[in-house]
């Protein structure tokens, strides 16, 4: 599940109305844009939700994607976060094989990555890791050597980095 080399993160503020997610998904399907991951949650203001969309921009220009998105009536604001200027986080949950002989190693791996053990079975462990997507990728890869029974990742969320550099470019000049 390696993220495409040329990806962009769009942070999209939408009206919290029925069908908004369907409109966004329909637009991506209709225009042939690729969504790599998508996270949705309400904001502190209940009238709005924020979508964090990771898009693959090898096929289509990010400008074309944002301009088409911006035409959706329920879309209020789109910020394009450059991966270099943002903090990205993702959560992974996995149930991994951990037969008694391997269990120590799996636990050690979780500790090295500062993950957590959420549940323990006879020969499986359910673990979690929150972190930068690249770190989560590494963790997932290492877990694979033991055998993954089930895996779920959330897709990334992101905010601009707090450094005194220019603000993330607001795509829509308002």
């Amino acid at each position, binding site marked *: 599940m390696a993220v495409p080399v040329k990806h962009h993160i769009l942070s999209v503020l939408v009206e919290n109305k029925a*069908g908004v997610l369907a409109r966004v998904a329909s637009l991506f399907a209709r225009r042939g844009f690729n969504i790599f991951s998508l996270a949705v949650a309400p904001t502190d203001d209940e009238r709005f939700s924020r979508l964090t969309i990771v898009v693959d921009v090898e096929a289509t220009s990010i400008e074309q994607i944002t301009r088409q998105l911006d035409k959706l009536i329920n*879309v209020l604001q789109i910020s394009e976060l450059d991966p270099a200027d943002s903090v990205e986080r993702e959560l992974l949950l996995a149930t991994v094989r951990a037969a008694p002989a391997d269990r120590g190693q799996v636990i050690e791996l979780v500790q090295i990555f500062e993950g957590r053990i959420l549940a323990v079975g006879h020969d499986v462990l359910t673990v979690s890791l929150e972190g930068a997507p690249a770190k989560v990728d590494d963790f997932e890869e290492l877990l694979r050597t033991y055998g993954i029974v089930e895996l779920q990742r959330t897709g990334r969320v992101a905010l601009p980095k707090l450094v005194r550099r220019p603000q993330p470019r607001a795509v829509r000049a308002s």
Partner: protein
Amino acid sequence: MKLTGAQALIKSLEMESVEVMFGLPGGAILPVYDPIIDSSIRHILVRHEQGAGHMAEGYAHVTGRPGVAMVTSGPAATNIVTPLCDAYMDSIPMVVVTGQVAYSSIGSDAFQECDTTGITMSVTKHNWLVTNAQEIPQVVKEAFHIASSGRPGPVLIDVPKDVSNQMMDWYWPDTLDLPGYRPAGRGDPEMIRAAARALLDAHRPVIYAGGGILKARAADALRELAELTGIHVVTTLMARGAFPDDHPLCLGMPGMHGNYTAVTSMQQADLLVALGSRFDDRVTGKVDGFAPGAKIVHVDVDPAELGKVRRPDVPIVGDCRLVIEELVGAVRDLLAGGSEAPDRSAWNATIDGWRQKYPLAYEPQAEGDALKPQMVLEHLRDSTPDDTIVVSGVGQHQMWASQYWRFNHPYTWVNSGGLGTMGFAVPAAIGAKVGRPDKVVWAVDGDGCFQMTAQELVTASAERIPVKVAILNNAYLGMVRQWQEMFYDERYSEVYLSPDLPDYVKWAEAMGCIGLRAETPEDVQPVIDKANEIDDRPVVIDFRTDSREKVYPMVPAGQANDAIVVPPFQEGRHGEGGH
């Protein structure tokens, strides 16, 4: 004041100054049909919901106001999907109201339930499923605003039956609640100055005018710009009439079946001024080979059009009329400051040379041959008022109508450009005539297209809407036949229709119209004259045209516009026209 949702809906349409609506009732929309009896709005009962949609489009094309259609749920809603998509592609303002099963039974596969808002999401500018009657006035106001502002387009309001029956407290909103919708207005002054500079610097400029000129009501501004700068104008299929064909600077239609001069001048231009046009593939041909040496100024109200196909050197987001007016001012300022355009006499002479060598032309009518469709159109054109509204279907007849008519007024050409919807002409002509009863409305239709929506002539007869229909009956799905002839070794697969099955004259008469027929060149003028005398009912003329006739010029699909194919009898002249 307490009203039902249904009454509030009709009253809201009245508040939006709706004068006419096109529709057909059924179960889920029944409550809304009751208050129509007491309303000032004229309702035109169609015979198929697709007809209602195209009528609303035709009405919108010629009036500039949103066309309104109302149908029931399920099959009626799906029947109007084609017109919605058509209006979406051609940016036609339209408001469609659909009935829906009771909100309480949505999701249960109730009788005639379909996911109308889901199905139409990608072919509307926006749509609503109304869940509470109290919302109705607000939704209607927003719907009309969205349909008609910015880049216009169709919207749909889906109204469940229980919401129509629910009581509400009437109000008329004075504000809109659309925080995410801000259509563009004026252009960026700096970009406009850059565009003005580019216009004055260019040696071989061409204005590429699209349908956005008509949507923005910018025809006068365009003319001022062209005359001020002396720059020639091509008018796309969606912009025919936006600049007068009789104007010396008008080069006519570009694109796949555009004339040689329009196509080639764009190819060789060093500046294209794209005004409300969208670099459609039917205009550009193979994009990589399109106008390779041209710098691009692109003006559009929809920011997503800038750079979608071709990256502009000077992008301007804004309303076409406002931007062109500002551009005229900026050019004037430069001229007043002593700037001058270069000497373009060589370019202008080259253009005149192409016009002389490669005029639109067809082999003349030979005695005893079937009618040349172009000849029929020339007779029709010369026998009707200059401001006649021409509505066409999709196919060869559409291209010939666009080529051989002379459009000298905006809003006199109505056709389905982006979607290419066969069956558009008859209902759209009816809608156009309802919108402009003062004008003569001729539909130029194909025999194949006519058979898709002809039943709306029953509507026209019943409602006394005297449209005129010229069927260019070549007994074929002619445009498809042309491709099979040229690109599939004359292997004709499923394109033959028959000239006399159906009998168009009898069919017309059965629908309450006058039916006429022209088989020989001598018949043509008399039947046209006869049709023009009738103004109390629809008329249909069955012109038996030559099925072998092809549309020229033609740029074969997927090729660069330099590969333009002229009619065989002009071929010898090809290649002499370069500058």
